[in-house]
């Protein structure tokens, strides 16, 4: 999954205060650090030009509150998503965040939020930026601060949580989050429509995305020259709307089926957002770009999974030798949609611009934000867009 950072030490503070103290010491020495949860996405971003010591957040691993009646929870950053889901699941609830590896023993809330990772449930419930209602953070000078709160609705103060979500730890450490929960669906069912024609798949996806139905997930898949649109329904009786959706896709010329035992379909969607050997490119596109994206994937012999209604896709390029040109051809075919490299073998990462070109004016502002939050410049230096 790409290069590991040079790690000369590894520390695991047991309290926010201890972590703050470690950071202010590191600031004093000008020593670079990076924050590590379950270490499932350590290769993401640009390799830092400086040696970084790892500060593990796994010492902060308590579920502080589960307020079932309020549909909220307050959780330390080092808690695994799987542990939280088990706890709230017992009350018929879930955190509607289902990134790849989220059901494993490693991926932590802090790491998922810091990298902005998400899964198919995003169609209906949004991502970490939408589900986190409060956050505590540690800054490089040792400041421990909170923003938001633990109620769903709250506009007091600046939304520091959104700033830290997807910031790859470059502004400081996420210590804990308050999250909004949702009820688990009593039933689910998925309509699958298959075709080898990118235009037909796009038409079917757009039809469902604009239909007056309530979908839990609306995904896309493409591999080995053929693809599928996957529409998942939840609720009291999910099978009927799934059959209706399949009916509509059938009329559009897709080959359809309905699955009421659909967990594996969605496990596969999540899994295909990651790759051990390939190069994964996340495309921040738009819905009406689906056919074009699939045609690009076909010519690159790439695999695609994506959130059809959101325009977000993960393209896996299999050949390391061709990956750098593959990334560039995706960028030019899909411009101006940003294409960011996530997983990639070391030799690929060395030859691509991981983040792609950034708007110069907003990059100036981004640097100013970084300088205010991490004036010592020790938090994951160089891993973020624009060399931040």
């Amino acid at each position: 999954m790409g290069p590991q950072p040079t790690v000369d030490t590894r520390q695991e503070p047991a309290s926010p205060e201890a972590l703050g103290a470690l950071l202010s010491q590191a600031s004093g020495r000008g020593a670079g650090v990076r924050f590590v949860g379950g270490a499932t996405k350590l290769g993401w971003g640009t390799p830092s030009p400086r040696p970084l010591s790892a500060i593990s957040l796994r010492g902060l691993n308590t579920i502080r509150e589960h307020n079932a009646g309020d549909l909220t929870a307050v959780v330390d950053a080092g808690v695994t998503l799987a542990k939280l889901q088990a706890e709230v699941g017992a009350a018929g609830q879930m955190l509607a965040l289902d990134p790849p590896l989220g059901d494993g023993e490693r991926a932590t809330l802090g790491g998922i939020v810091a990298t902005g990772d998400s899964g198919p449930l995003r169609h209906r419930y949004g991502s970490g930026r939408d589900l986190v209602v409060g956050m505590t953070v540690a800054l490089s000078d040792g400041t421990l601060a909170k923003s938001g709160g633990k109620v769903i609705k709250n506009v007091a103060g600046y939304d520091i949580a959104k700033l830290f979500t997807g910031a790859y730890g470059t502004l400081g450490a996420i210590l804990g989050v308050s999250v909004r929960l949702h009820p688990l669906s009593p039933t689910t069912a998925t309509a699958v429509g298959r075709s080898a024609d990118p235009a037909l798949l796009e038409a079917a996806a757009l039809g469902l995305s604009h239909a007056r139905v309530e979908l839990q997930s609306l995904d896309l898949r493409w591999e080995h020259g053929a693809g599928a649109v996957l529409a998942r329904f939840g609720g009291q009786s999910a099978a009927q709307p799934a059959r209706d959706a399949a009916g509509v896709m059938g009329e559009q010329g897709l080959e359809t089926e309905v699955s009421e035992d659909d967990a594996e379909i969605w496990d596969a969607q999540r899994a295909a957002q990651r790759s051990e050997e390939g190069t994964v490119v996340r495309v921040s596109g738009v819905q009406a770009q689906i056919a074009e994206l699939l045609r690009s994937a076909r010519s690159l012999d790439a695999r695609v999974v994506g959130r059809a209604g959101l325009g977000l896709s993960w393209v896996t390029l299999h050949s390391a030798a061709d990956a750098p040109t593959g990334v560039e051809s995706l960028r030019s075919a899909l411009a101006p949609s940003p294409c960011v490299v996530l997983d990639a073998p070391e030799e690929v990462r060395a030859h691509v611009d991981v983040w792609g070109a950034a708007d110069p004016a907003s990059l100036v502002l981004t640097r100013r934000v970084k300088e205010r939050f991490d004036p010592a410049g020790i938090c994951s230096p160089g891993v973020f867009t624009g060399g931040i």
Partner: protein
Amino acid sequence: MSAPGPDLAGELRSICGDEYVLTHRHDLLTYESDGLLQYAALPGVVVLPGSGEEVQRVVRACHRAGVPFVARGAGSGLSGGAMPVEGGVLIALSRLRRILDVDLDNQRVTVEPGVTNIAVSEVVGPSHFYPPDPSSQIVCSIGGNVAENSGGAHCFKYGFTTNYVTGLDVVLPDGELVHLGGKGLDTPGYDLVGAFVGSEGTLGVATSITLRVVPSPESVRTLVAFFDSTSEAGAVVSAVVAEGIVAGAMEMMDNLSIRAAEGATGAGYPQDAGAALVIELDGSESECEARFDQVVGMCEKGGAWKVRVAADEAERALIWRTRKAAFAAMGRIAPNYYVQDSVIPRTKMATVLAQIEELAGEYDLQVANVFHAGDGNLHPLVCYDGAKEGEPERAEELAGLIVKACVDAGGSITGEHGVGVDKKRYMPQMFGEEDLATFQRLRCAFDPAGLANPGKVMPTPRLCGEVPGPYREHPLEAAGIAERM
């Protein structure tokens, strides 16, 4: 910071034209307050730019002159967020009301900040809609919604403004224009769109806003049920949530609010009911029907005297008009009122409402409650008579105690109206010094000179140090006027 001299006013005239720069006292008075009339300040100049480019030139001129500015949309805000800086520049965005792009295929609409909230739903309807729906949606502007991260009755299910803004063009307080986000999600870099939404005009002026719209639900069912008390109605809300039902909206009015609203709309609500509970379900028809019957049953079982189900769109509209009229109708109960916007964890509703009732008794004042029951956002309206000696002060004190009760219950000082000038004194109840100093870092990154809507959000004025670099004393600091973060 200085006041605008004749040079700045002249420059603004050359940018926007004479008729769009106001300096006469009688013209300026129109802009001295926003929707919260308790607070007023007279700006030195009001300027009405006609394009994003003119906004940029206006801001650049203010920055060059070192004059603070405040952006204003429709002026319907309820926290004093658009109250001018005395003698400063007020940038009224009411001429920026063009819908720039309707990209229905990609479910995006791009608008100028002066476009009204309702206009977005109108331009994509009836197949699609824009979910955040503040009660003022007919007049309030998208720019103001972005500044305040506005919510509305349907945000329990659908979320807030921040969940629907994907891109922004922002004129920074030094006059630079930045494009943040876009039509796509997860664009590389910090989520500066997320940081900007809800920043109450302190980080710059949005001149173009890209919004996500969604398909309209296939089916909508609405009821209003009447109960003896808010605690009975509250128990039904809890039962609905515990059943795993995510209602489109759950709204409650207490007896005072029912009486006020009934006077305004004549909806035929029983004047002696202790609580009216509006529940709306939306979604696919089969799901909605099954769940709606269940909810009607829960209301009946929970002690409802009567459950009135909207039979058609006209009856549904009347239920909503009556709910949304509650604020404005409060004039029928008392000459003046303080509106609060506190949030509590929903499960603490009965306890906090009892506390409010007790406090109101102690202060011998009436407090009406109209609130978003699904997400615990209370709107206690502290009624008083401004003409009576000492009553405004008593009302203000009571309002402060209500806010404290909500924060103590684990809630927030504001759910959707914003901090503005009205609630900044309560900020230390929620946030410590390190939290506030961290907020200030964000503000300083966007506005190191402190010119954009100064005096709002933060409880005490703060300055931005130079970063990075050694400490240097600011002239205002030396004079003891402001303190450093």
